[in-house]
């Protein structure tokens, strides 16, 4: 290793894509266009559940200006009886999600797509497509979908030997649960519900696709993974991956929701059929109706503790709504729920429930906030029953190095306890509270991911640096990569350009997801940069006529060392680059790896609320997140992740929810009625970054993007309980629900 001065790591440098973004020049998918481009549009099912008996597109095709129409017949079919996994997805479901095949399974499910000279003509053509539906009974809510006589979405899904909407289960077990509860002095069991909530990215899904007559396909789209776009589009259209170049446009938010495709395969088929580039942009309403919110849930959690506050047994049952196809994040709910605690006896079960609602997509630590909400609320009740401070209860039972978690791992060095102790000592925890004000705490865990990453580090002829990586930058990762490259090479960060390569220009890189981007890209960038430094030393050695071992790289310069110290003037990066041609050619290195060692992330939150008991409005007065961030390479963007996650959770806790009408349609498919937090709803948000470096990472990085959302709903719910002395067991704690729960007795007690 070379000497690290930490000149750039840990500093808030200006992001490489910043000037583009503050001037409006950054090109998001919907900002791109091509000569000869036409417009695509999707026809969507008007029913939440219907068999598609026939589709007649002839009238649409005959309309002046229409250039192509596609239906499920044009999409590669994946038989339902053979799994075709791709990442966390299964192509059997993806193919039917991008275009309904046998049945339309939710209101808004695509049934056909049209490309025409204008958006207006495409919309007109959609109206001319005749679909013969056999309307079927439907079930959206979990309790409706798991009733014995519920309408069955998929005949091939069986549970306990019978057709069912329970598409999958998962169980984590540790110790002896019965024996554990037998030891408990206090046992509390509660049930909770949460509503489906949308990721809420401000940029709607969009793409522009050009397919040439030789099959060469170029896709510009906004996604969390250009390689995912390439793979899924290839599988769904039959075009080989080598013929598809997927170019990652700037992405206007994803939060997990852009880890799958919706439009790209349709636009590809429309472009292929029409011979024109095709652009497709979803409306906000389409996003809300037909792209993945996360699951709604019902959970039951039972926890037992002895008088001294030792948790001796914990059991959780989590039903998560998958939407139209199997695949809700039960792993996150059942796996993360108890992960912050050292509990000897655990059973945690997840049930994946399909229902007539859009297919779930990942949302920031998928499933984990649902599990944490239930567990952390019950823990609060345990603390109350035992008259123990809720943070002390958590500190007493906190997982630490060596703790065996129910979902599998034995933890290495983790920083959970530090987050709890920091919260305990923080002035926020001791600040006075007024009438109808309350304080809640909660902790949370997220797995974090490693996986495939590629990077190329090239030295330009004028002695600067271009770094190319393969993960769409969703929250400032390019800035952190610039810091690392500048640090390792010992040069000013402004001399490092960081680009996100497309599928033709950089090696395979897995999704931007799982809080993996900086963890994984830092590893491949570090390895590449070290190879480059090796080359630079070798070039200097060649020029000096000494052994490469006798050269050190310091502060952006090669310097002779050992016996040769002082024998030659140092050579800068620019001086070596200028002689590259004579000393062996271009200088650069690329590394492609399946990265490992992404240890989980933990955080603990404190939330203060005030309840307006006349209006039922819960206002967050103060919020502090304490997170083990491993190493904050670019602290401001780490804080940004923490703050943004807190606000998403506050929205989930207090306002956001999918509301369905009697016809099974989403009744609030816009930002007016699906109310995400706005600026005036929020206080300033404190982010306390605790740096316990990940021992398995060259810079100590831990994923930081997802765990910020995990404890939030529980922290808010515990704060509301502290303010009112009354607990709400379902989210959101929206004004009508809060008011409904406030009777005279509660109010008097709260005063």
């Amino acid at each position, binding site marked *: 290793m070379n000497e690290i001065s930490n000149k750039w790591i840990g500093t808030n440098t*200006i992001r490489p894509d910043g000037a583009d973004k*503050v*001037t409006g020049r950054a090109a998001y998918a919907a900002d791109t266009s091509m000569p000869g481009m036409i417009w695509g549009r999707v026809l969507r099912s008007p029913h939440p559940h219907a068999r598609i008996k026939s589709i007649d597109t002839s009238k649409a095709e005959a309309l002046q200006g229409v250039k192509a129409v596609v239906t499920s017949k044009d999409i590669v079919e994946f038989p339902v009886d053979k799994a075709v996994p791709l990442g966390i997805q299964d192509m059997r479901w993806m193919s039917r999600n991008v275009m309904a095949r046998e049945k339309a399974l939710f209101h808004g499910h695509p049934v056909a797509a049209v490309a025409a000279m204008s958006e207006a003509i495409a919309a007109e053509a959609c109206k001319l497509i005749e679909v013969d539906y056999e309307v079927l009974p439907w079930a959206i809510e979990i309790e409706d979908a798991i009733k014995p006589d519920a309408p069955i979405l998929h005949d091939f899904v069986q549970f306990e030997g019978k057709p069912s909407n329970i598409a999958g289960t998962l169980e984590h077990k540790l110790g002896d649960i019965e024996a554990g509860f037998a030891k408990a002095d206090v046992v509390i069991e509660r049930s909770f519900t949460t509503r489906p909530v949308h990721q809420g990215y401000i940029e709607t899904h969009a793409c522009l696709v050009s397919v040439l007559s030789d099959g060469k396909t170029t896709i510009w789209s906004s996604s969390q993974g250009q390689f995912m776009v390439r793979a899924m589009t290839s599988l769904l259209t039959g075009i080989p991956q080598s013929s598809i170049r997927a170019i990652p446009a700037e992405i206007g938010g994803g*939060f997990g929701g852009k880890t799958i495709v919706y439009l790209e395969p349709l636009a590809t088929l429309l472009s292929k059929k029409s011979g024109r580039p095709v652009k497709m942009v979803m409306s*906000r309403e389409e996003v809300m109706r037909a792209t993945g919110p996360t699951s709604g849930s019902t959970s039951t959690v039972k926890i037992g503790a002895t008088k001294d506050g030792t948790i001796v047994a914990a059991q959780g049952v989590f039903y998560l709504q998958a939407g139209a196809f199997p695949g809700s994040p039960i792993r996150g709910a059942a796996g993360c729920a108890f992960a912050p605690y050292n509990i000897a006896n655990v059973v945690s079960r997840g049930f994946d429930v399909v229902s007539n609602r859009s297919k779930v997509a990942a949302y920031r630590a998928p499933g984990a906030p649902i599990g944490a909400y239930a567990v952390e609320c019950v823990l609060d009740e345990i603390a109350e029953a035992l008259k123990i401070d809720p943070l002390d209860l958590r500190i007493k039972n906190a997982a630490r190095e060596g703790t065996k978690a129910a979902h599998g791992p034995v933890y290495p060095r983790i920083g959970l306890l530090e987050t709890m102790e920091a919260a305990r000592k923080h002035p926020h925890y001791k600040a006075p509270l007024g009438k109808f004000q309350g304080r809640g705490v909660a902790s949370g865990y997220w797995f974090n991911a490693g996986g495939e990453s590629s990077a190329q580090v090239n030295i330009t002829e004028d002695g600067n640096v271009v770094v190319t990586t393969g993960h769409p930058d969703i929250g400032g990762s390019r800035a952190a990569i610039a810091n690392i490259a500048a640090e390792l090479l010992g040069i000013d960060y402004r001399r490092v350009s960081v680009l996100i390569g497309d599928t033709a220009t950089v090696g395979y890189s897995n999704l931007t997801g799982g809080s993996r981007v900086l963890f994984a890209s830092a590893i491949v960038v570090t390895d590449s940069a070290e190879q480059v430094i090796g080359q630079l030393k070798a070039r200097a050695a060649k020029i000096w006529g000494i052994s490469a071992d006798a050269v050190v790289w310091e502060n952006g310069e090669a310097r002779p060392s050992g016996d040769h110290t002082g024998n030659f003037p140092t050579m800068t990066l620019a001086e070596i680059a200028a002689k590259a041609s004579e000393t062996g050619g271009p200088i650069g290195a690329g590394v492609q790896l399946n990265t490992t060692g992404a240890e989980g992330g933990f955080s603990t939150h404190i939330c203060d609320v005030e309840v307006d008991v006349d209006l039922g409005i819960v206002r967050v007065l103060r919020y502090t997140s304490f997170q083990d961030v491993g190493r904050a390479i670019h602290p401001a963007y780490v804080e940004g992740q923490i703050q943004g996650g807190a606000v998403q959770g506050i929205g989930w806790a207090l306002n956001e929810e999918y509301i369905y009408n009697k016809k099974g349609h989403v009744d609030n498919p816009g930002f007016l009625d699906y109310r995400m937090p706005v600026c005036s709803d929020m206080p300033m948000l404190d982010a306390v970054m605790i740096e316990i470096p990940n021992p398995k990472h060259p810079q100590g990085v831990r994923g930081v993007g997802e765990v910020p959302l995990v404890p939030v709903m529980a922290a808010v719910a515990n704060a509301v309980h502290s303010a009112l002395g009354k607990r709400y067991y379902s989210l959101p704690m929206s004004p009508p629900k809060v008011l409904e729960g406030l009777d005279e007795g509660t109010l008097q007690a709260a005063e």
Partner: protein
Amino acid sequence: MAKLHISTKINGEPTEFLCDPNDSMLDVLRGPLALTGSKEGCGSGDCGACSVMLDGRLVCSCLMLAAEAEGHEIETIEGMAEGEKLHPLQQKFLEMAALQCGICTPGVLVASKALLEKNQNPTETEVRYWLAGNLCRCTGYDKIVRAVLDTAAEMREAAR
């Protein structure tokens, strides 16, 4: 449908365009005028990503008919910097990491500039209510509010 011929001024430059009667200002900015800095997040005036100034007033360009631009002046994010020199708000947003994905940023900047033109010394609450029409899903608003307050302070200092 016959196109309408509209004469307007955009970012200080006399501009003419043809539009359909039902085209929104945002459609024309992003389409024929190729000013794609204004974004469409909702098309219903709820997210503020399409914020522009119309004769010095902050509006959602998705709620404005393009034909209404006739004889009026529009300023977009593309007109915010003066040549190479970023507006102090743009510079401060970069320095303070007040953006993540950046999709809401043009609208937030246009709206923030409108605020500082009316009120050189806004309180935190005034900033928060002024920007309540600009949704940001990434930042939690903290760094945006701080950047606007800091810019205001610097601009006041510079004006002294």
